[in-house]
């Protein structure tokens, strides 16, 4: 290969003409960056910096007050010998596997139902959406009192028809299903998203499917489901992330059911009641960090939670994109 020979004079000419072009490129880049700055600064300050800090602190022994001490992988190694963490992870996994699909199914079902109403649609939409408007603490309090075994209206009604209701939030076997019921009661937040998506499906698709002889199930599977699948993915991803961070409802339900909702010294001694059945991963993270002063370990737990949420999101997105490519 022969090296190209460039005369010095030619190079000067090229440099002279390249300078304004470079200045123009820089100006363009700066303009683009200035428009992006608010978002970039926001991401850097409120996401990247805390994330980087969490990763750093996860390798330290830290109490929020004194200087952190580097301990390497000790915090991560400690997780392997932490039975409370295992219990919390299993409970959280249960909620992700059961509550997220159950809420999606209930939301799609109720949204489909609402699209059928010719009259009073607005009223029923409000009715279904209303529980989602209640603050989580108030909603959980009200729900636990509704299901209070001895005096709550649910068991009173069941008794009136000869059924002995369970202990709901007071029974380790029923506590998690009761939390799922609480999640279903407040399904209005995602129901409204599905309702908008369903109303957006062009009517002509259904007409074409009917002309092709599709039955009701086939119309749902190949028209409705196919049209709203991006929305389902979105709701599934946000649902998984929210459920991995499930805190308020589990904390309030446990303390109310245990009969110690208003103790002055903090309610964390009731977390998990009964028998650790409602003890979730974020509750343990909170207790370790803010009750037991082990902020380094709490940060390690937070990093693992982030990785799990990220992996779950990646898997869900990958499956969706693969499905779309296949179609």
């Amino acid at each position, binding site marked *: 290969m022969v090296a190209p020979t460039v005369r010095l004079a030619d190079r000067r000419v090229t440099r002279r003409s390249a300078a304004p072009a470079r200045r123009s490129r820089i100006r363009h880049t700066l303009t683009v960056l200035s428009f992006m700055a608010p978002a970039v600064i926001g991401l850097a300050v409120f996401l990247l910096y805390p994330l980087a*800090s969490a990763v750093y602190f996860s390798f330290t*022994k830290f*109490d*929020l*007050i*004194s*200087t*952190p001490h580097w301990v390497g992988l*000790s*915090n991560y190694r*400690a997780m392997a*010998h*932490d*039975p*409370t963490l295992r219990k919390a992870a299993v409970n959280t996994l249960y909620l992700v596997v059961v509550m997220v699909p159950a809420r999606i199914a209930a939301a799609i079902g109720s949204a489909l139902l609402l699209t059928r109403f010719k009259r009073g649609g607005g009223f029923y939409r409000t009715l279904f959406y209303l529980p989602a408007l209640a603050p989580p603490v108030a909603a959980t309090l009200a729900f636990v009192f509704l299901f*209070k*075994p*001895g*005096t709550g209206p649910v068991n009173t009604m069941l008794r009136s028809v000869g059924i002995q209701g369970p*202990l709901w939030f*007071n*029974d380790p076997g029923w506590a998690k299903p009761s939390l799922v019921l609480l999640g279903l009661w407040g399904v209005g937040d995602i129901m409204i998203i599905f309702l908008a998506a369903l109303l957006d499906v062009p009517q002509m698709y259904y007409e074409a499917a009917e002309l092709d002889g599709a039955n009701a199930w086939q119309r749902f599977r190949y028209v409705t489901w196919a049209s709203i699948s991006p929305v389902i993915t979105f709701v599934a991803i946000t649902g998984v992330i929210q459920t991995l961070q499930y805190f308020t409802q589990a904390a309030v339900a446990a303390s*109310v*059911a*245990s*009969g*110690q*909702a*208003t*103790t*002055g*010294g*903090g309610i*964390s*001694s*009731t977390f*998990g*009641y*009964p*028998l*650790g059945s409602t003890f979730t991963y974020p509750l343990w993270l909170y*207790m*370790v960090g*803010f*009750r*037991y*002063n*082990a*902020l*380094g*370990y709490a940060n390690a737990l937070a990093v693992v939670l982030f990785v799990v949420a990220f992996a779950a999101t990646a898997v869900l997105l990958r499956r969706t994109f693969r499905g779309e490519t296949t179609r």
Partner: protein
Amino acid sequence: MTGRRRGHARLRTLTRARVVLAVASTAALLAAAACTPAPRQSGPAPAGAQASGAVEFWHPFTDRENDAMNQVLADFRASHPKIKVTVKGGQDDAKMTQAIGAGNGPDVGLSYSTDIVGKFCSSGAWIDLNPYLKRDSVDLGAFAGPVKQYTEFNGKRCAMPVLADAYGIYYNSDLFAAAGIANPPRTLAELADDAKKITVFKPDGSIKVAGFLPLFNFYENSPAHLAPAVGATWLARDGKSAIGSDPAWKDLLTWQKSLVDWYGYDKLEAFRSSLGDEFSADNAFQKGQVAINIDAEFRLAFLADQAPNVKFGVAPLPTRDGANYGAGYVTGNVIGVSKTAKNPEAAWELVKYLTANTGTIVKLANGLKNVPTTTDALSSPALEAGPEFKTFIQIFTNPRSSTTPPSPVGPAYQEKFQDFLSSYQAGKVADLNAGLKDVDNQINQLIQLGG
């Protein structure tokens, strides 16, 4: 490339590296500075100096308790016109810890729980008050033993007591009379016998009235409140868990489990699920659903307000063999000066006023209906103390009364034990010794991670 251009390139690279290094160092320094605020003052001012300036005070009180605190603070403002106090009520420990960590903590903080003393002393979130106490000749001998214990950690007294709670038992006089019992139980065996005599079952076998509800984590039935009954210890001298190695715990658990089994765990849980919240008007003792309840002096105010018709008596906690009868569990509110205090002298002046001034302590005790912490306040004629309240004062001053020891991991040792007890009382622990050893391991791991 010429030597000069290579030199320029190296220079550029070096300059860029320096810029990156400088930015990174500045960021690290800023982060470190933000995370670890330095104390504003190294020690107290010379004796005789008059404190002045602004003080921010955070406490957890609301409603009635907040009103009582405000009255005392109004007195402080009148007697200390040079100190301006700003008050924020309804604050909790987690918020206070974060604020101090961020360098924006209150000058003075008050906590409901002694659980924070270990971590606030060890981390330095609250400053050591020993130099101030020494300078102002505050007599610590005026405070009861447990109070001195729960305000200090490893020789550092970073907290002072703001009133105390003493625990004993409340018994329903009508239910006792109906069962033919004349006196409250003095031993754990008598407590179990009385509970069995008083308990009434419904025809379907469920509990109608419980003599005593022995489940741990029911209302105030925590292992901490029952530990003085058997003289059980929590932590060894090296700060590690002593639960598995102290046979007293095994005695207490065996007694409790046998009573749980007499009732039937499922029946007790079903009964508990039908009861009202502890701090509501539906409290089971106030409703006559439970005859004997472990509780503190503050229940007297609730009974007077919410259940004035209930006839009851109070007594010290029954003990294993009656030898330590009269003692009980003691705890209380604690107050300290933050390491970020802008005005430590004025902050200490407020702390001293609230914790070492007899008139203030008595006024606060009458308002909050808690036990005063100093001998002068306890014997003050201005203290409103009926016969029941006096029983709690006797428990408080009993030399064998005890508290939970401060630990750098806060209440971790109590709450890990409570987790175990929940499983144990449900019959899910096959080997008690192995279970207690496992509790020790879990607690020690947390102490290692956070202590």
